[in-house]
């Protein structure tokens, strides 16, 4: 248990709660901006779980995965914000229930 002051189960519980919050936000919020933020929360919850696991077993893999998650999040935000801008320009709204052209 050296190097980890908080028990692993607790960290994983926090990560799970964070993930659930993000998932709930994704499903319930209608604003695209908030949905993107929910995604970020979910990514970070996963990253937290990786860090905790890496510390628990004294392995570098957890930190490597965290770096990867950070990169993915950055790329996702870049693409996501671009989409947000385009959708805002075209539809003058960010309400995703109003934007259903994917259907076609």
């Amino acid at each position, binding site marked *: 248990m050296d190097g980890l002051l908080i028990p692993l189960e607790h960290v994983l519980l926090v990560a799970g709660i964070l993930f659930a919050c993000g998932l709930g936000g*994704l*499903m319930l919020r*209608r604003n695209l901006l908030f*949905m993107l933020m929910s995604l970020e929360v979910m990514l970070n919850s996963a990253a937290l779980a990786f860090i905790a696991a890496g510390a628990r077993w004294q392995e570098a893999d957890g930190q490597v995965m965290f770096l990867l998650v950070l990169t993915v999040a950055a790329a996702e935000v870049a693409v996501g914000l671009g989409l947000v801008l385009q959708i805002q320009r075209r539809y003058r709204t960010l309400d*995703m229930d109003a934007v*259903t052209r994917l259907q076609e």
Partner: protein
Amino acid sequence: MNLALAAIPGLPMLSATLLILFGRQIPRSLGAVLGAGSVGLSAVLVAGQLLAYLDTPTVVTATLWTWMSVADFSAAIAFHIDGLTVVMMSVITGVGFLIHVYSVEFMWEDESFSRYFAYMNLFVGSMLLLVMADNLLLLFLGWEGVGMCSYLLVGFWYKNPANGAAARKAFVVTRVGDALMALGLFVLFTDLGTLDIQPLLLAANLNWEVGGTVPVLATALLLGGAVGKSAQLPLHTWLPDAMAGPTPVSALIHAATMVTAGVYLVARLHGLFLLAPATLTAVAWVGLATLLLAASAALVQQDIKRILAYSTISQIGYMFLALGVGAFSFGIFHLMTHAFFKALLFLGAGAVSHCLHHELNIFRMGGLRTRLPVVFLSFLIGSAALAALPFTAGFYSKDGILLSAFTAPGIGPWLWAGGLLGALLTSIYSFRLLFVAFFGEAQTEPDRKPGLPMAIPLLILCALSLLGGLISQPLDGVLPDAGHPQVPHLIEWISIGVPLLGVAYAYYAYIVRRPSSSPAEAGGDSPVEGFLFAGWRVDALYNLLLVTPYRTLARWCQGEPIDHFYNGVVSLNRLCHRGLAALQTGELRWYATTFVIGLIAVVAIVLRSAP
């Protein structure tokens, strides 16, 4: 020699080709010369063959070229000329030429004059091919050719739909027989390995035992073909309707030549039939049943051509009877004399309708004896020969058939009695026709008299019908002949006397007690007469058993029942598509939610299945 032989069927076919290709440009007179002249030339060539054969009876075989050669099967365009062929060729070209000459006047006013002669020439060519063929495949080619010409000529006046229907009926009914015959040829080829007639007969004699399964099967199938073409039971229904064509066509095709092709086929292949006694007996019974049915139906007909049509069916029944009892040469003899007197009667009937505003009902004629003397003479001689009155041509052939039937072992007297009843009926209906149409009060006045092109063929045929019985056919060595049958004198006298009895009855019924009013149009006052008038209602039976079910099936198929299944598949696909498309709402949150549900489901399954 080969060229002269090839020209016999070749000339009419060449003329037919010219008339078909240039029919519109050729004037009537040239068309008549081409049409009748080509058959006339062929008749001259045939006469040369006949004289040569009578001088020295040698069999001539000529191969013109190979028609097809596949693996170990080959068929040649080859002719085989023996006594039987010479007789058939003489009848076809001789009677055919007279009918062509007659047709020139009969069809002169028709708008399709050259088309008529094209078909007639094609018919004569095909018929000659049929009788001259050295192998059964070439024979079958001629066989189908005459069937096609029959179809074309029955439906010659195609603007009337009824004529087209009659032509189709003739074609379809004979097709049944032709299909059977083709099957028979297949059986012969698979079993004996050749279709050349002479090697075939030799091989059959060597390989087949009398009464075996294969001989009976093969000959029964061939008999099916003969029955179809020769209008015998049960495929006879097409012939009365085939009278829709021009009358000379009926004379040539449906009386003198084509319908006797079945008789020729059985006679040509008698070697096979002798190996299958069961089939030969069937031939006799088919002939007897047909001749009785048709003769009784002829008793009550009112249309002059229908009387003659039923009479033709009945007379071919006699030929089958002769073949069936093994009297092949009498069968061919009756074929020849029948060609003379039936062509005479048909041409006479054509002359009557030609001069009488196309009238065909004998009860609306009457008194023609003095008005159309040449035609009356024709009918008098023709009817006498048909009824087999002594010293006419028909007497010699029919008497021979009846006496041969009597000598047949076992069933002989029955066949003889049936044939005798038929002879009685024959004499009654033929003299009924003569007495009703030519005696008594005139019902319709003729508006013209037959000209020379019609009168001369009639007179020549009169002479042939009177004296044709004296012709001795050069059939020795071709057909087995037992000579004149030996029977008790009483039987001979009865056979001679019965037709006279029939004439006497007809005289009593139609001259002495001449019916004051003509019978009802639909044929007869009593149910029996109606039954006979409809030809024993065989047509109605076939309609009920075959035509109606077929029509029903066709109508059912018209609704495309099989398509219902595939349409069902299409509908199912469409339904599924609509259901799946409804899931695709385009709402992002709905998609995300389904992801989550799916994820949870996958995780649950993985966890459950984990050990």
